[in-house]
């Protein structure tokens, strides 16, 4: 019977402790810095255009094929304002299909895509989760504002091994 009494004491003691839950829709659990929410596209404030060039690398590496991108010639480049020769024309992420793995961020060579802190998926229609370019950029801008995101210095964005190991691996084997 001792065990049973101990159990009663445990629940009794817990009764006087502070609840650990949150009143969810009104109160949110604090989100950690590294939290990976939906992927969003970043906005280059210097040139006032997206970082994304529509190079499709994220599209190819996405495990669920939830993205699609179309590239176009950059009009700002023709005007000489931007260094990007190509720019993204349309971009769509099906957030209902995205698994938030972060592979697109890893493979992106232009710092164009980031995992934001946004994570609430409830929509009124299934198709509402297909997010297009303006919406993604808007989400990106609010993430930029919220987290103080800065593009990485150019050298670090592209890891060396990408070009190096082809021969190294060959030699190894």
């Amino acid at each position: 019977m001792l065990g049973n009494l101990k159990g009663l004491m445990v629940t009794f003691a817990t009764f006087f402790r502070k609840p650990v839950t949150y009143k969810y829709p009104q109160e949110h659990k604090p989100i950690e810095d590294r939290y990976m929410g939906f992927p969003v596209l970043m906005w280059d404030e210097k040139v006032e255009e997206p970082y994304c060039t529509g190079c499709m690398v994220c599209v190819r590496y996405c495990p669920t094929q939830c993205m699609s991108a179309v590239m176009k010639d950059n009009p700002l480049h023709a005007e000489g304002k931007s260094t990007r020769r190509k720019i993204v024309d349309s971009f769509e992420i099906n957030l209902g299909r995205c698994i938030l793995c972060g592979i697109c961020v890893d493979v992106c060579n232009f710092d164009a895509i980031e995992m934001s802190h946004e994570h609430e998926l409830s929509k009124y229609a299934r198709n509402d989760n297909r997010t297009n370019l303006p919406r993604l950029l808007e989400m990106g801008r609010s993430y930029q504002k919220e987290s103080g995101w800065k593009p990485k210095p150019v050298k670090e964005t592209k890891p060396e091994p990408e070009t190096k190991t082809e021969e190294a691996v060959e030699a190894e084997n």
Partner: protein
Amino acid sequence: MVERHRREEAPQAPVDLDDKGRALELLLPGILAEFQPEIGATVNLVSVTVKSQDVPSVCRLVKEDPRLSFNFLMCLCVVDYEEHLQVVYHLYSTDMKHMMVLKANVSPEEPSLPSVTSLWTGADWYERESHDLFGVVFEGHPNMAPLLLYEGFEGFPGRRNYEMPEYKEW
């Protein structure tokens, strides 16, 4: 994605056996001599390839031989090499703590080989699963009902030549 960048002459992974594996490699040919096994090695394990009809006798032998005592069927799977299906048994011994791979090839048209459920009860679901996905028939299995797929499923989805149904976005 389609399989691009496929190299014709891919390098072979180096074999790197541990002490127990090397000991097994020396031990096995003697024990299994009557079955004329092909003894080789995968990257980290000794592998023995035998004829499919020999599988139960070989299994009984390796299970009951005190030097091997493979009493634990770790994993049973089928690999579709297109020209043949390979049934792969990973055997483990809880006493000796060593492991080996037993392989048997069967033809893809009429794949069948004797069941090992009488030796290791745990082969039950593995064999049913292999039957589901690859169509390998294990003779002597008590209940070959579909396990993972529903009754009446057409085709063997595990095989390489199985055509995946078109995925439709809603």
